[in-house]
């Protein structure tokens, strides 16, 4: 096994060309509007404040950095708009629990529900019930089946998950110098967000990089994503002695991949993934294992969702689908990327472990 030499110009050009572009389209094929286009005038903000509205945030899950940043963004913007948050629920990825959560928060008669459906089919009934009760709905990432923007809900705001996959693919190609065998650790569930990432990654590899071969794919189902991913990655490396890289569908499974590579001394393994979690950020900063990732902008996404909710209160016409482009993150820009994604300084551990001087 020869250590791949990093750096592959075609990949770098592809990334440059991608900057600011959104590849995904809305749930009903709507073209994406940009987040920057969603704004409120001071007058409109006063109008909203006067409404003294309440909002409930109904999440599929609240256990990771991404949902945290989303909620932080929502809290900040709702605060600024004088909208009170009366409940934040966590369905622990269980659609039936989410249905219960919706029923329960409806008992508190919120004006707004910002939510990410854990399942587009199963939760539709409950969301329709909410819409019928006159609650303004704003969705993140994913929309319940059979609901129409403008009629049943205000708008859907999503990260460009396809784009994130594409970015990670180009970063992988760059790290492998355009050639080598790689493995894929994907999310074995019917979850649109993670499916789009997989699709973006694999299609890009197959389309743009004929010398890179996906030789093994293994799914993780949770709850122990890291543990499952470690077992999967280990098996891949045992079976394919010259495996050059592995893509992880988001940062938690990727931590398992890192542990696997570390455990069996594969320090030359190139790992790319999605989402800028602290641990993968540290890996990037310290130049270990992770060579790059595609990051969403969950905080901005939250802010945008809050603004769109405000639109509905004052009857302002909202775009049906808003998407935020994917942010390529490498060792070089990891600290800046953190500030951009979370609107806060990177944790000490990340800055400390940055090798090769401050930026």
């Amino acid at each position, binding site marked *: 096994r020869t250590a791949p030499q990093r750096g592959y110009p075609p990949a770098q050009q592809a990334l440059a060309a991608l900057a600011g572009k959104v590849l995904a389209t809305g749930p009903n094929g709507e073209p994406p509007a940009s987040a920057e286009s969603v704004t409120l005038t001071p007058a409109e903000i006063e109008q909203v404040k006067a409404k003294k509205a309440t909002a409930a945030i109904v999440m599929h899950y609240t256990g990771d950095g991404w949902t945290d940043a989303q909620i932080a963004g929502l809290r900040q913007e709702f605060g600024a708009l004088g909208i009170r948050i009366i*409940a934040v*629920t966590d369905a622990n990825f*269980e*659609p*039936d629990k989410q249905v219960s959560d919706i029923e329960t928060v409806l*008992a*508190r008669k919120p004006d707004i529900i910002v939510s990410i459906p854990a399942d587009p089919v199963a939760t*539709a009934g409950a969301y329709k019930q909410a819409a019928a009760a006159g609650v303004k709905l704003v969705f993140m990432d994913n929309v319940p089946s059979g609901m129409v923007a403008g009629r049943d809900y205000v708008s859907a705001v999503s990260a460009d998950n396809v784009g994130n996959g594409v970015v990670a693919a180009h970063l992988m190609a760059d790290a492998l110098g355009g050639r080598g065998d790689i493995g894929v650790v994907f999310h074995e569930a019917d979850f649109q967000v993670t499916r789009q990432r997989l699709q973006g990654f694999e299609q890009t590899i197959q389309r743009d990089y004929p010398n890179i071969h996906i030789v093994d794919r293994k799914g993780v189902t949770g709850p122990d994503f890291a543990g499952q991913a470690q077992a999967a990655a280990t098996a891949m490396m045992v079976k394919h002695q010259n495996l050059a890289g592995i893509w992880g569908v988001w940062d938690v499974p990727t931590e398992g991949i890192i542990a696997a590579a570390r455990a069996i001394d594969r320090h030359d393994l190139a790992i790319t993934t999605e989402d800028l979690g602290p641990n993968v950020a540290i890996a990037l900063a310290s130049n270990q294992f992770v060579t790059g990732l595609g990051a969403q902008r969950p905080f901005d996404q939250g802010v945008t969702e809050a603004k769109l909710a405000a639109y509905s209160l004052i009857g302002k016409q909202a775009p049906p689908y808003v998407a935020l482009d994917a942010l390529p993150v490498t060792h070089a820009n990891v600290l800046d990327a953190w500030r951009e994604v979370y609107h806060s300084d990177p944790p000490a551990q990340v800055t400390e472990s940055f090798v090769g001087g401050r930026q």
Partner: protein
Amino acid sequence: MSDTTLVRPRTTIDWRQYAIYIGFVVVFVLFAIFLGSDGFLTSANLLNIFRQTAIISIMAVAMTFVIAAAQIDLSVGSTAGLSSVVAALAIAGTGNALFGVLAGLGVGLAIGIINGGLVTFLGMPSFLVTLAMLGIAFGLAQFITSSAPQPILNDTFNAIFGGGNLGPIPGLLIWTVVAVAVGAVVLAKTRYGRQVLATGGNRVAAEYSGVNTKRITFTVMLVSSVVASIAGMLYAGRLESGRYQWGTGDELSVIAAVILGGTSLFGGAGSVIGALFGSLLIGLINNGLILAGLDNSQQQIIRGLIIIVAVALARKK
């Protein structure tokens, strides 16, 4: 020399008798006081609590028999999941709700016969058998659907199972009442119920008394699976789709409800009504904590504390 402090029969420890009811009332009153303004007491919300706990309550009725017979069934959750997808597929295939129901029940029967058979005739520990079955049923459900949800467009089915209401009363509430009523009478008032308790209390003595303990063990496992398959269809009807994840992790909630209700994990004692209130207590807490606007981590902490305190307080009485 007969004393007045009549402890009811089949008591292992007295607290079991009333703990759950006291705990339930205490928690309810507290919520009513502090969350009344947040819509806790609205009839809509109270019905929510029933709706949200119905499926667990129904499985808890059957689990009460299983545990009273000194067995355990960890496969109820994934049996529900498998039944939900099989029913959905059958409906999609035949367009006929009845076939869906039969297919779902078939799943329960098959799994129950396997669980019961292995435990009864090979003498394998029910913990292992049903744990293995948990994986098998879950895997099968995921495999045959390649983990995609199976929408159910048949309104009759969705109305009967979970979705519909009878006037103001949610269908799920009716399902619960029926299941609990039947279960309570059978366990407390029929020969079969007494034999279940005897089998769980002392299998050899029951055998010497002419109880067919193999039959008892087999039937409690069978019924548990069949009820779980009905629960699966209730999920399917309520969520208008079958999905392999329906019911994931329910086994723990169901067993918790049963134990909260005063049934001993070691068998020989059991209370169906207690199990219902165990299930309601958990649902009540979840509902109240969400209305209180706590986030998930805080909910988890407080739920745990409430359960401990409720049981401990009642224990003192």
